[in-house]
């Protein structure tokens, strides 16, 4: 009985199949090629200006005037960079900028990570207004804030110091830090935290040993945001400082009346640290344990 049935199915399978339509396969292949092409175009769009700036900054002054411009660094020279670095206020500005960037990063993480955790985990009264209020700091343009800010810092004696810029940048960075980290903390399952409690952690230990490490990608993303924002921010830094300028503020003041080489060198020096920082933080963005956090 069962034998006959098996034979029946086999004969059916052996019957002539209709011709296979291979067009979807070709379409899939074409779409993949298009995606690759798009990636290349976008990469070029981003990378080409940076390359050109780097090229100009590391070429001799004379090479800048050549026509057509060479795309290969054949006349490499540090002359331009050296002159730029020796200009007044540049080295100081560089040091100030690094300091401001690092302190802003630390301060915004120290305040922002616990705040993000609180927003993600606890239903405290006034949570929604708090989240809205956070966004308000970014709603007002810095130009509007500049006069009261300058006055405030003059009164408190913080004017024209690294601390002043750090405080301003921290205020600017906190909303993104809190929002990014809170969304990542939301992604950390509550069970895992509870498991930590069961197996001997106090609430603080559970946060430090289990929740924080799982939130590293988000904290890295927030760090990149904060550092790059602080590094690039010009307006607030220009308003709050006079002699203790950050690099972009310093470059900005002298940009209009400086030679082309100076501009390229300044641009290069502004781009590089942010790129280096992103390069190092990038590996924390994609998480480190194989696949997704679950």
């Amino acid at each position, binding site marked *: 009985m069962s034998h006959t049935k098996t034979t029946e199915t086999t004969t059916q399978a052996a019957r002539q199949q209709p011709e296979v339509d291979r067009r979807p396969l070709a379409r899939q292949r074409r779409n993949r090629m298009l995606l690759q092409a798009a990636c290349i175009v976008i990469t070029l769009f981003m990378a080409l200006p940076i390359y050109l700036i780097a090229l100009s900054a590391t070429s001799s002054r004379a090479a800048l005037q050549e026509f057509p411009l060479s795309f290969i660094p054949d006349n490499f020279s540090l002359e331009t960079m050296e002159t730029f670095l020796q200009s007044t206020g540049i080295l100081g500005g560089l040091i100030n900028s690094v300091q401001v960037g690092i302190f802003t990063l630390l301060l915004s993480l120290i305040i922002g990570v616990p705040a993000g955790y609180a927003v993600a985990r606890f239903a405290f009264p006034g949570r929604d207004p708090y989240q809205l209020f956070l966004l308000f700091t970014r709603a007002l343009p810095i130009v509007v804030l500049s006069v009261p800010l300058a006055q405030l810092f003059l009164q408190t004696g913080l004017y024209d110091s690294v601390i002043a810029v750090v405080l301003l940048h921290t205020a600017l960075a906190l909303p993104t830090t809190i929002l990014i980290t809170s969304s990542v903390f939301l992604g950390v399952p509550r069970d895992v935290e509870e498991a930590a409690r*069961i197996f001997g952690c106090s609430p603080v230990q559970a946060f430090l040993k*289990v929740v924080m490490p799982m939130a590293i990608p988000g904290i890295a993303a927030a760090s990149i945001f904060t550092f790059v924002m602080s590094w690039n921010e010009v307006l607030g830094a220009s308003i709050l400082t006079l002699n203790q300028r950050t690099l972009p503020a310093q470059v900005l003041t002298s940009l209009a009346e400086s030679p082309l080489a100076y501009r390229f060198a300044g641009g290069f020096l502004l781009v590089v640290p942010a790129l280096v920082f992103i390069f190092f933080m990038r590996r924390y963005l994609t998480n480190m344990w194989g696949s997704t956090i679950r």
Partner: protein
Amino acid sequence: MADISIKGLHKTYPGSTELATNNVSLEVAEGEFMVLLGPSGCGKTTLLRMVAGLDFPDEGSISIGGRDVTYLPPQDRNLSMVFQSYAVFPHRKVRTNIGFGLVMKKVPRDEIERKVAWAADLLQLTPYLDRYPAQLSGGQRQRVAVARAIVMDADVLLMDEPLSNLDALLRLDFRAELKKIVQQLGSTTLYVTHDQVEAMSLSDRVAVMKKGQIAQLGHPITVYEEPADRFVGGFIGSPPMNFLEGRVTQQGALEVAGQSTDAPEFLAHTARTGGLPVMVGIRAENIYLEQRGIPGTLDATVEVVEPLGHATLLTVDLGGQTIKVQVASTVRVSSGERVGLRFDQSAIRFFDTETQLGLTA
């Protein structure tokens, strides 16, 4: 190892008016495997979480081994737990996952290594000790969670639906394995599940919960054979117990679907006035197929025939009421056939139609 004593637990979650647990009291003896069984929302997980210290009760008390733990934080209760979602730490390797609790307890390192090796061996995790959980399958992750719990030598082992995220075949395997391990350890275990098969197969005693209260507490076979009320009978068993509207006549006969059979002694006695309505409960495997017309059988019509391999499940129409009948797979019957049903008299249970509570002699 220790016993658990729960007295009068009340719990309402914030923002809800319904009691998650309503005056629940439960004694779990030392070394006992107690299963909390019930549908979702019955309060079984809430009860477990209060024993774990993850939630605090509004009223009542919990003590473990004679020590009051009602409002102690989880880390001070000396218990361990297996979570439904495994809840392994994704940023730690299997080895440090298993040893996590021991490290927190500041156990000497060689002791930790010895215990992790023992647990890994027991749960066949030895080849995976240096992997991250993301590199393991679901079943292996659950093994890690169990290993992490059993190395603790805790007073109490809590399990929150530990098998429900595994696929059917794996669940069957792991269920037996879990029973073996827990028997070896001999630890007091509180196990939450909504799967009555798990409850039956694992437990020493089972507490069936309904709407925040314990509906019946007892040995699994007792709960299966003598459900305390209609809810328990309908919840335990697959297919669930059949319920038929019936009536005890003045003459002491049982009338179901317009046909009468013999009523058991105790019911016939209590047939005070004519026509006492009762709910008749009988399990599918306690109904036998007979030729139609034999005395003592009920006439019925087969509606659906479902061969299951080990048995055949019939859906039968009995005078307008639908019931399930389980017959041997060798029985040849087709839908639409008219048959006679004979109830195993010793397996019939009776319930009050109003209170839904079981009636006994």
